[in-house]
């Protein structure tokens, strides 16, 4: 689910679990949207910009 959600926000391609999301068009505005949606700190998402890390953060 996370994968699809993130893909919908980015350039359309579904990124791999450990790929750097910045290479897929992630920017600060989208980061803010994700942070609000997942209720996770913006900077935490920014520091570890991979799907795997985000799933972990969201699960906390």
């Amino acid at each position, binding site marked *: 689910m996370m994968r699809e959600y993130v893909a919908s926000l980015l350039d359309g391609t579904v990124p791999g679990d450990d790929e*750097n999301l*910045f*290479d897929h068009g*992630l*920017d*600060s*505005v989208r*980061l*803010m*949207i994700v*942070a*609000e949606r997942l*209720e*996770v*700190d*913006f*900077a*935490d998402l*920014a*520091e570890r*910009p991979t799907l795997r890390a985000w799933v972990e953060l969201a699960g906390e």
Partner: protein
Amino acid sequence: MSESPLTPAQEGIWTGQALDPLSPIYNAGEYVEIVGPLDVERFSAALRTVVDAADALHARFGAGAQVFRREPWSLHVAAPAGLDEALGWMRASLERPVDLAAGPLFTQALFVLGERHHVWYQQIHHIAADGYAFSLLARRVAAVYNGAPAELAPFVPAASTGAERDRSFWLGHLDGAPEPVSLAAPAPLGGVVRSTAALPYRGPDLAERVIAATASHLAAWTGADEVVLGLPVMGRLGTDLLRVPCMAMNIVPLRLRVPYGGAFDALCGQVAGVVRDSRPHHGYRYEWLRRDLRLVGGERRLFGPVVNLLPFRRPLAFGEATGTVRTLSAGPVEDLSVTVSDRVVLEANAAAYSADEVEGHLQSWLEHFGGLLSGRPVRHGSPLDGGPLPAPAVPVACLLRARAAERPFEGAVELGGRRMTYRELMKAAQAFGEHAFGTQAGRAGLAGVMLPRGVEAIVAIVGCALAGVAYLPLDPTWPKARLDAVLADARPDVLVTPSGVRRLSTGSPSGLAYVMYTSGSTGRPKGVAVGNEALAQFVAGASARYGITGEDRVLQFAPLHFDASVEEIFLTLCAGGCLVLRTDDMIASVPRLLQACADLGITVLDLPTAYWHEVAHALAAGLCSLPSGLRTVIIGGEAAQPARVADWHAAVGAGVRLINTYGPTEATVVATAADLEPGDAEAPIGRPLPGVRLAVSRGELVIKGDGVARGYVGGAGFDRVYRTGDRVRVRRDGQLVHLGRVDDQFKISGHRVDPGEVEAALLAHPSVREAAVVGRVGSGGVRHLAAFVVGEAADLREHLRGVLPAALIPGHIAYVGRLPRTGSGKIDRAALRDSLTAAPASVGGSAVSPAVSPAGAPAGAPASSLAVSPVFAAVLDVWREVLGIPEISPDADFFLLGGTSLQTIQVVNRLSVLLGRQIPGTLVFRHPTPTTLAAALQGDAAADAPWERDARLPDDVRPRRTPHAGAVLLTGATGFVGRHLLAELLAATDARVVCPVRDPSRLPGHPRVLAVPTDLTTPGWTAGLPRVDAVYHNAAVVNVTRGYASLSPVNVGATIDVLRLGVPVHHVSTLAVAPPGRPIPEDFVPAHDGLRDGYQRSKWAAEELVRQALDRGLPAAVYRLGRVVGEPNPQDLFWRILRACEQTGARPELDVVEPWTPVGYAAQAIVGLSATGATGVFNLAPRPPVRLGEVLAELLGVPRIPLPAWVERIRALDPALALFFDLAAGAPEALGEVRCERASAFECPPIIYKEVLC
């Protein structure tokens, strides 16, 4: 220790701080409120681990380099009484300037408010941390507290100059962009003022919407078609910097086209596109871009308001405790910043916006955003927007034909007994057109119509309209030379005169409706060519606004070559009303005119404002009354005098609509209109007509849209934009107020002077029929006003003194038979100004030689005085040296010559050495040419008196936030008033009172009184004082024989010292600072001739310093006292006179009237008013003034003798008193009526002479 370079982000901040080393605005601070159990030791250790790992926090800076020095630091731990006290500490800490060379750059504090309540305060200079860094540090401290590693990356600063491909992207993006607009003019950095509100929108596209809404709001309120907003960017995403606490953020300029009436969604799309396209180049620093675009210094901006989108800071976990973050200060705001996180905060530069304005702007932004979200088109809905036409504009020819078809037998035009119906008018107009232009339309483009007012003229004008030919009205009474000039310029194809129609050439239709000539500033008449579409729009908009209907009978008053006639003719005939032409005898007198209007059943009267002034005057004088049928009066042509508006309303009431219109010929008759309401002290020019769009550019009104004329005959087209040269301001109610012409602004002694105000005062005199005032700079740079008056008024100066501050009283009043007028009937002020230079005139006794103000010299200083001035020479030398340019012209701009911010610091340092005084770094930014910089360094013209020169507040005086001290400073505590003030402070407040005195034994021994032995003339006397919350500055030398120089160290110098403390100041002053002979307002007064003795001069200078401090945001109040009475006071002059009378058995003839202030009342009022926090001036003399002669008579049973004889009698007894009378040249001019409104809340007992004096 090895040096590292500064990063590009750090360089900008370093330079900004170096320009103003004492400024604390780069201190950023936030606090985390931690609720729950907190292990303070563990917290302290976690904090230490993180801070020590944050390299950037330990830097020390020199020019162009930094070293990292880990010096010991400690966490300040305290247990304040509550959060408020902690906040006081934090705010005081933010106010302390940081020395970037010595450090420390940060402050850490932990406030223990309870076992489960702690506040962690973190303050870091912006050069070491931006918002992200603060967030990173806070999260790490929590993480380490919770047992995780610090995980911070090292800070490795590298210099950089930016990539060429980024530079060329931005240069391309901004190429051709107009100057960025904002809601206020640029100002030097001040504090920050803010207003907060809830966010009206949440959604994934919040960012685009907020940016687009800000762009639309800005464009709506300025009328600009393009805006440049600033977008702060983190500058770290996808890099290692995500783990480095440091300063990295940048601001990128977003240029946006904001088309009027566009769709909000489209604008949002444009925003998204610009952000997306520019993203790869967001690393190019804005400081570099400023330099690339030569936008440094002076008042140049790279962008206007900034839109700051902040991620929400989630609460932090410290074990079981939760910490919530709150920002106290995020650094300086250059102009405006819209910050959006979970709410919207509008922050503004306090030097450019008042708190009131910021609140107003936030409200209008919210309203605008809301409107956009509900589907309102972009840029709609501001006071500058006239809104859409009620129905599409229809060409007047069609409207005329339609009216004729509807009401063929109704009256269209009347003159005398003659009446022409609509059908007759159409027939005659058609016949005229065929005769004049041939049966084929299109054989003429322009027809000159030189007919006197009459039915034939109207027929001709209507005929032109129907035939699609523009008409050029020519006044048959013009001198031949002017007529020839106009004809040669306009070259009409046809000329219509009473003797017939003459064909001059052939032409073709140009789509023009008319051409009217106004006189240009060079004197050559200019023809304004107005297109059919503009006329159609005017008719549609004005008819709607004025409400003219087919039932109306409108008087045709204006000459046909003034565009007011266009209003009368076309609005009436296109609505189907009846146009009644006036005859010459109607304007012989106002009563004649009004009688004629009554007889003719006029319902709408259109008058030039100058004539209407006469009407209002006559009505108020009861010479006549308005006809009962009249329902609307429209005025325009010059500023409506508020006095006449008041006259009108007093006489007429609100039953007749009074519409004040404004509009240059170039904008097609009228652009804005206002219904003038009773009780409105200004006479606003109102709101734009439907279809009219305005813009305000640096205070100047610009008119845009289809209503703008095509252009001047033979000149370039206006392209639907016309700069009016008029200054306006937008009131809170959305109406515009006319402030004068752009070229009319004038300053005397730093106070802005509006000649219009003086004219209004002159016109208020019953014998003055017309008046005009111009500003002039005389020899020696002396600035004065010159008035030209039509009318006989012997007591004019006295009249003015009763109404105007001294600085506004014209130095030169000339009585003339008539005022020169321009072609459009306006007063020709330029001609008046020129007439003053033509021949030397006498100004109140002193000769004034022709003033030469060569372009480039600052107003007020003739160029010759600068050319030899050593300061000017020094400036040129230093610039040559620093810039390495051998030839520097006096008006060259430092930054356009290539000077950098760093070089301004070099200039400032060298000039400081040369001139022997510290020069503020920002001076070069504000005055970037040698001429203006030299003038600023020299101060105003040499004509300034010493007390005016001393009354300049040093730059380092500014408001400071200090923690609550529970104490106040009272100077002069042992004096007459001081003793009473001290007693009142002890009785009415809980504060401790710190009293700097020379002799502490003279103070009461009260536990709350803290005596500080010192002298106010000792340099640095304030350094040893304990902290205080406010100052009651009462100390002054009250000696009426000593000169200014001997009094100024205490009266002026000590005032600066107390202002420098930066806390609210309550300044005790005297009514003697006010100019005599006129009412004394509860307001500051500019310097004036009545400041005769040293005491008056020094107390004036002190008030002026307090005024400037108030301007800078320091809360201050001034309490002016009269002669203070209440107990025998051996120092007081009057008491000494009394004693001398008693001892010599005689009293003098003393014809002096003066206000008195009982001392008990003074103390109560001062302390009481100070508790309200009110600022400004209070006059504490609510009782009627006292006649000194009467007092002497009442109290003394001794005979009265002439003053000179009495002085001789007392000379041996009191030589100083005799000397006082020797020095006083005659009786002093009496002070005027004391306006005592604000202070009258306090009860003042009646003054019983026996009680107060004996």
